[in-house]
């Protein structure tokens, strides 16, 4: 086979459906033997949050941000039909019926397939997210980390 291709996805969005799309593409690309990186920035960082309550030392603003943002993949809202929380419940029911994998499982599958999950440290600072609040075994970086992967990417997506 030829040289390994690269797929790079920027997950900017913190919507459940958009994150699902990102992780389905990432897992598919890994099955294609691509070297896959998902670069999480801004609201996309919330997909990487652990669902347990942690109390790292934070400023007042950081605490507020932490409270207002969803804690973990399964708490993300939908981009459409949120219906005050009813939407995600309904879609997860339908997903179960159709055997579609929920987002947290897609994320574990991505880690199992050795997809690089990268968290943007600059936006972590802005949103007051600490490393201990995010999933274990992820990497941290900035724009250069993305560019170095992205410059020879066969597929580059911004979601």
């Amino acid at each position, binding site marked *: *086979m030829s040289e390994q291709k690269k797929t790079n996805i920027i997950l900017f969005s913190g919507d459940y459906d958009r994150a699902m799309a990102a992780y*389905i*593409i990432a*897992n*598919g690309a*890994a*099955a*294609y*033997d691509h070297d896959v990186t998902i670069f999480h920035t801004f609201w996309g960082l919330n997909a990487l949050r652990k669902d347990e309550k942690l109390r790292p030392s934070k400023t007042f603003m950081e605490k507020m941000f932490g409270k207002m943002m969803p804690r973990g993949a399964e708490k993300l809202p939908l981009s459409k039909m949120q219906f005050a929380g009813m939407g995600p419940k309904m879609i997860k029911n339908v997903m179960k019926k*159709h*055997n*579609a*994998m929920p987002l947290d499982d897609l994320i574990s*599958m991505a880690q199992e*397939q050795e997809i690089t999950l990268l968290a943007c440290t600059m936006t972590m600072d802005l949103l007051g997210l600490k490393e201990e609040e995010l999933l274990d075994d992820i990497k941290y970086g900035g724009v250069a980390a993305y560019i170095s992967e992205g410059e020879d990417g066969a597929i580059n997506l911004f979601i």
Partner: protein
Amino acid sequence: MNITKTLDAKGLACPMPIVRTKKAIEEVNSGEVLEVVATDAGAKSDLTAWTKSSGHELLETKEEDGVYTFYVEKG
């Protein structure tokens, strides 16, 4: 046709059939045949595209009552 291994991917939705197929093909040797059984309607074009780009050969495809069977020879 000599089938070395069978993968039951029935009931699995995208992207699982392709993810499982990739794992299963790693367990057979070059020239051996992997049988994949799936019910996801997208699997037909997915498997076809995947075998083509990953250097394997899709020997045969069958469809019966919404069940797709693929025979992939490892490249």
